[in-house]
């Protein structure tokens, strides 16, 4: 087991290096470096040259890459071109908001998807099952920004049930109810696709378990159907689902860009969009690296959990 984890960890190192090279290369090919272009025309060319030199933009690419990677490894992601602040600070002050959103979404996804998935499996090939299947198809196909717009338009603007956006009421003191009230809609929108997918996974997993011999044994022993489903089937059906969480991470991170934009939620997704529009390269590079890193970690955790959970896997 330990050797498996170590081997799996070592495998991620070339992956991370590849990710960093692509991120770096993309920025090199991108036009319109603000340090070079968007400067005050009153600044004399010599001063501009000096600034470019000071930023190290004249050095050979491998040198620039090595300097940047050296920074990344030691936790120094450079300073924003626009606000001149350390990128690490900018990300870390936004990160909690995104994490709260992602956490709330995964709670919603689990709370909604697992019971519905069980019902769908228990009532396989009934009208209920077909209806649930249909709705989960819809959940995957619907664009999340549009769902967000619809919820804001009908529930927030026209009915006034929810706030239009933001983390909390402006200039108000911390209030848990107010926070949750602001959190609900964005979390629901972010959870849409994964709830639909998780419902399908739960259904498949339950169906697989339902036909196992030990379930028939439990029934043969005369246990009530509820006990058979919840005590015998569910436990085993849920195990493989643990790993799905690692795989849900990319959709959560990707979705957060859109959802944070729609709901004016000040998280890293919103920071990313702003930086991209301002061509703030250090922030864009850091964000691209960081999110890819999270995905790699997510996959790693999923693989390791799967190995722990399923004793049939050999390492």
């Amino acid at each position: 087991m330990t050797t498996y984890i170590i081997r799996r960890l070592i495998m991620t190192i070339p992956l991370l290096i590849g990710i960093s090279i692509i991120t770096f290369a993309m920025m090199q090919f991108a036009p319109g470096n603000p340090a070079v272009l968007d400067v005050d025309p009153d600044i004399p060319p010599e001063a501009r040259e000096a600034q470019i030199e000071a930023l190290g933009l004249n050095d050979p690419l491998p040198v620039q890459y090595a300097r940047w990677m050296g920074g990344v490894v030691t936790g120094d992601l450079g300073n924003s071109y626009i606000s001149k602040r350390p990128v690490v600070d900018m990300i870390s002050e936004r990160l909690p908001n995104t994490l709260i959103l992602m956490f709330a979404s995964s709670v919603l996804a689990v709370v909604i998807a697992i019971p519905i998935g069980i019902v769908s499996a228990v009532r396989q090939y009934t009208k209920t099952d077909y209806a649930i299947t249909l709705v989960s198809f819809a959940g995957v196909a619907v664009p999340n920004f549009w769902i967000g717009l619809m919820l804001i338009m009908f529930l927030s603007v026209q009915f006034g049930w929810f706030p239009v956006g933001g983390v909390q009421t402006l200039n108000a003191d911390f209030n848990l109810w107010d926070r949750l009230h602001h959190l609900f809609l964005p979390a629901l929108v972010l959870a849409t696709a994964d709830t639909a997918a998780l419902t399908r996974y739960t259904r498949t997993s339950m169906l697989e378990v339902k036909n196992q011999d030990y379930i028939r044994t439990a029934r043969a022993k005369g246990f009530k159907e509820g006990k058979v489903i919840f005590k015998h089937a569910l436990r085993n059906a849920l195990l493989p689902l643990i790993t799905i969480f690692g795989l849900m991470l990319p959709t959560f991170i990707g979705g957060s860009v859109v959802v944070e934009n729609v709901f004016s939620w000040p998280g890293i997704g919103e920071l990313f969009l702003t930086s991209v529009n301002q061509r703030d390269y250090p922030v864009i590079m850091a964000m691209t690296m960081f999110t890819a890193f999270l995905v790699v970690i997510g996959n790693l955790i999923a693989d390791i959990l799967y190995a722990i959970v399923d004793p049939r896997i050999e390492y």
Partner: protein
Amino acid sequence: MDQFNQAGKQESITPNNPETLGKHRSMLAIIVTKFFQNKLAVFGLIMLGIIVGAAVFAPLIAPHDPNYQTLIARLHEPSAEYWLGADQLGRDLFSRLLYAGQMSLLVGFAAMASSTIIGASLGAIAGYFGGLIDSIIMRIVDVLISFPNIFLLITLVALFRPSPFWLVVVFGSLGWMGTARLMRGEILSLKRREYVLAARTLGLPKWRIIFNHIMPNAIGPLIVSATLAIGSFIIAESTLSFLGLGISPPTATWGNMLSSAQNLTIFQTAWWYPLFPGLMIFITVLSFNFVGDGLRDALDPRVVEK
């Protein structure tokens, strides 16, 4: 998307239906029959027929010029004159939706074609030749697939501000990894099958083995993934356009229509404006997914006709 569709797949393995055994029909006839027995797939196909037809024949169908601004009709509600209402510049929403469909569908199809061609070729090369080429291609896949897609898309699109053509190129070059993995897997498993070995033993030339024996069996999963890919590219394009990064006005796409509909006054007074473009995206993507899923079941020999 792929994960989602995999999840529903396994339960469909049923023993051979005695009635269908012994009948000799062509593979295609069986596939077509199975496809048309799937109600959702047929529904999706009909919807797609209507949507694609409406987009193609937009100049004939549209009651108004999609870009003609009638200032007194600003945010006009749905009526006999403006079937689905009008937008904030007094342009007919129904006509704009038809023309927007042209762009959204075109980008979706073209992106699917380019990503499928790139993915299938690289996957086939990796699978067939193996060794170093295989390792290089698959490591590139591993790296590219680690970026949350939307981050790379947004970065590239925001920095390079591509025309629709280059947008398709960006989609193609970031969307091929799943197809490559799929194709490689197919080739790897097919090239070791007995019938391929038999073909080789008979002394058939390599190209005949690849084109006549391996490709026809690998094409099924490829068609399924291509169909499902169109839907996700349409979502990607509309997301980018919604964020103001994809295709910019005055060329209408469903996404940039939603972008200009994101406004508090419009939310208060003109519910039809944000509603219909999103509904079009939703129905279109749903239909592609239904068709893709139907194709998968129809092409899967383990799923037997009812």
